[in-house]
């Protein structure tokens, strides 16, 4: 494997030099909206959209400037200021990898902002929603743009905060409040990995800056143990943020947030930060074939299957999509385990997924918007006539995700599968299997929602959403339609990314007729057909059937929460109780006991003062005898 291009140009000028504006605009928006508060109620959402769009413009300009440069100069560092003197400087790294993310974040982000104007129009707190969204965009951009792990970590936690705030946006719902807290806490478990990873990195390499890291490794190749440790720790961080096994449990609960949030944060951008982390650190800490790379692959494969299985059993449309997100990120992780080619497909899938999953979520949001916020698919049915645009865009997204030939997902997912099989047969074929399951659960979703008989309640009057919501849907579905082909065919993405992630020994080439590809298609078709058999052809019961053991297993999210509960929460609660008890009775009790002991001895000694002069005389005589005896003794020694 070849290291990524090490030469980093420092720049202060141009749009790249001003790339900090990308972060600053939405941050400013968030600050204005939060500080001015209710004063901005009337125009707050517009400001939010404007700031997001401004960022997008900067991103596009910076992107154009970057591709205008020769390939070997496409790693541009922007020094901002000294952060922790002697340890970390705050700076940005504008390279193909980060700029791709920027485009995705600001682009899809802006669309979702626009969509939210409509979606949140009835919410009295819309202004607050936009401030949080802006905050998120800002933090996410910091995450991908930072040229060092500390900056990345600040962004990393920033998006976590935004996610927390947005999941708990409807804080008065206890379920939302709990889900928000859970998301944050589980993420913190991952953060622990990232944090400790940073300790090891700085101790081993004396720097946390990406560009210096390359030099340090080159100058002083580290021992395998340290790198493995770093890799595994970073993987833990990635698992938290990207909802990979074993830290997946928060993502399904996170659907308590408003749907645009699910689309933006919990599908398109934030949850892919783990993938970004692995790819960004890949060259340093995840060399191909290393144990930690294998761990990444295993986590990815396991999650892609788990997510898919969860997806098959959910009747809540958003939770179904959340399971799907887990699964798709699993694919990306799997891809990210296999060097530059894998990176390319992982990032490619990340981008296309950003589009089609956002499309799907927003579509689901549109459906809910028309259905009085009903999320149970068993209460849907036959909606394709009531909301044609939503149906059309959703259907495109659906085709993209199951890998219908020539749509985005087809290219990127297939690329991952083939790369995986090339490196690791077992995991690769598992990914194929996962694709089949994807075919099933996505088809099930489409059939249950848009086909069949209507099963909705009498007071529901499904209707198409306003343009402000459907236009973003259309834009996104357009992306879902063509982006994969654009990026993958003729290796555009690969070559674009090479300066950032390194070049493979052999450039990838997409084969339309490979065995795995065909097998995947076949399995997807079977899955879809089975879904049609169960949900398209047959009547869908509006009450959930009991289902087999396996179904229950899937419905309960593979018992992830139960496991957490029995492994961590209950022991934790007991530990807390014991600790509190120990503190009150043990530590404090010891001190109070000592005080009580002194008080008690005082009470007893006090009784010696009987009030009888003769007793006092006795003590004097005793004292005299003791004194005399002691002196005689001391004197005669």
């Amino acid at each position: 494997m070849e290291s990524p291009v090490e030469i980093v140009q420092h720049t202060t000028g141009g749009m790249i030099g001003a790339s900090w504006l990308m972060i600053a605009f939405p941050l400013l928006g968030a600050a204005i909206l939060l500080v001015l508060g209710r004063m901005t109620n009337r125009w707050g959402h517009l400001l939010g959209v404007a700031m997001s769009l401004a960022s997008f413009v900067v991103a596009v300009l910076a992107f154009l400037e970057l591709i205008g440069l020769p390939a070997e100069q496409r790693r541009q560092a922007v020094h901002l200021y000294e952060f922790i003197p002697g340890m970390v400087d705050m700076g940005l790294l504008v390279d193909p990898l980060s700029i791709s993310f920027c485009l995705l974040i600001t682009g899809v982000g802006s669309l979702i902002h626009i969509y939210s104007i409509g979606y949140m129009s009835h919410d009295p707190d819309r202004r607050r929603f936009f401030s949080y969204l802006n905050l998120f965009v800002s933090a996410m951009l910091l995450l991908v743009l930072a040229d060092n792990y500390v900056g990345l970590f600040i962004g990393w936690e920033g998006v976590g905060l935004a996610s927390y705030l947005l999941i708990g946006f409807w804080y008065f719902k206890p379920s939302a409040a709990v889900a928000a807290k859970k998301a944050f806490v589980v993420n913190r478990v991952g953060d622990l990995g990232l944090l400790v990873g940073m300790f090891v990195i700085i101790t081993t390499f004396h720097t946390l800056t990406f560009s210096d890291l390359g030099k340090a490794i080159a100058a002083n190749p580290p021992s395998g143990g340290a790198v493995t440790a770093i890799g595994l720790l970073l993987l833990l961080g990635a698992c938290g943020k990207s909802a990979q096994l074993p830290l997946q449990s928060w993502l399904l609960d996170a659907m308590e947030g408003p749907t645009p949030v699910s689309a933006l944060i919990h599908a398109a951008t934030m949850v892919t930060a783990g993938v970004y982390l692995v790819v960004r650190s890949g060259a340093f800490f995840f060399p191909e074939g290393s144990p930690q790379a294998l761990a990444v692959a295993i986590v990815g494969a396991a999650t892609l299957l788990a997510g898919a299985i969860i997806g098959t059993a959910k009747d809540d449309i958003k939770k179904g999509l959340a399971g799907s997100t887990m699964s798709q990120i699993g694919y990306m992780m799997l891809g990210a385990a296999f060097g530059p080619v894998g990176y390319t497909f992982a990032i490619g899938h990340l981008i296309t997924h950003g589009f089609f999953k956002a499309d799907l979520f927003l579509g689901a949001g549109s459906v809910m918007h028309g259905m009085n916020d009903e999320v149970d698919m068993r209460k849907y049915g036959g909606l394709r006539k009531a909301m044609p645009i939503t149906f059309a865009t959703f259907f495109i997204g659906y085709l993209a995700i199951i890998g219908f030939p020539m749509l985005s997902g087809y290219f990127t997912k297939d690329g991952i599968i083939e790369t995986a099989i090339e490196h690791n047969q077992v995991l690769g074929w598992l990914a194929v299997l996962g694709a089949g399951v994807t075919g099933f659960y996505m088809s099930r979703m489409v059939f249950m929602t848009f086909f069949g008989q209507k099963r909705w309640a009498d007071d529901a009057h499904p209707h198409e959403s306003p343009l402000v919501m459907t236009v973003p849907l259309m834009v996104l579905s357009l992306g879902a339609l063509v982006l994969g082909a654009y990026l993958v065919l003729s290796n555009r993405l690969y070559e674009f990314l090479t300066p950032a992630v390194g070049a493979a020994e052999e450039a990838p080439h997409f084969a339309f007729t490979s065995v795995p590809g065909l097998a995947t298609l076949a399995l997807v078709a079977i899955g879809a057909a089975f879904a049609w058999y169960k949900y398209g052809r047959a009547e869908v019961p509006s009450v959930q059937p009991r289902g087999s053991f396996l179904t229950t297993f899937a419905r309960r999210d593979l018992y992830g929460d139960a496991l957490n509960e029995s492994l961590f929460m209950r022991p934790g609660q007991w530990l807390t109780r014991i600790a509190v008890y120990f503190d009150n009775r043990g530590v404090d009790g010891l001190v109070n006991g000592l005080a009580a002991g002194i008080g008690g001895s005082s009470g007893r000694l006090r009784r010696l003062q009987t009030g009888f002069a003769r007793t006092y005389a006795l003590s004097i005589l005793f004292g005299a005898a003791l004194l005399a005896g002691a002196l005689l003794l001391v004197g005669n020694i």
Partner: protein
Amino acid sequence: MGETITFWVLAVVSVGAALGMVFNRRAVYSALMLGTVMLCLAVLYAVQDAPFLAAVQIIVYTGAVMMLFLFVLMLVGVDSSDSLVETLRGQRFWAAIAGLGFAVLIILAVGNAVFAKEAGLAGALGQAGYIRSLALLLFTKYVFAFEVTSALLITAALGAMVLAHRERLAPKQTQKDLARARFQGEHPSPLPGPGTYARSNAIDMPALLPDGTVAEKSVNRYIARYDVEQGHLPEDPKLADAIKHRAAIESSDEEPA
């Protein structure tokens, strides 16, 4: 040799008397025992070339101090005697332990000290002679202490005055004053005795005044209370009421003038 015999005799006597003082129930006997000890000691002083002290011991100590003790004993009640029951738990036991221990320590210390032959006072007396030498010492070297002792004596006198002497605050009442007070008071004549003009002359039966009313004060209030408590009330309701009233006054502890 003579000294030895004297010593042993007096030692036995004085220790015996000392123990007698401690263990005798009667304070007066204790005082007498103490006097005995003092007299023995006086003799022992004399034996040890301290005739002046022997005299002072008898005159001041046995003569004055012990008399003072006896006076006070008379004041306090000469026939009072201590109960021999010890009320403080363990006091005697521990007193014995401490006392014995202390004695043993002193005896050990003294016994272990190696004394040379007594120097005797001959050298110290020199040409001046005994009394003169004493005086010389007293009025030169210890003159300051001697003077200060006067403060002690003044204090003692002052203290006795403060605690025992009561200054008369008003002129002493003369016979005349008393008579005047009596005739100006409510009862120039004596109060009627109980039983007077009553059908019975028992002391718990109130007197009747010449106008036939009951004289409540003629019955002792303690007797009245006893009668009420025991139910020995006269049949005459008037008398019974008077006794009850008297008892009630008593129990509320207010003696009307």
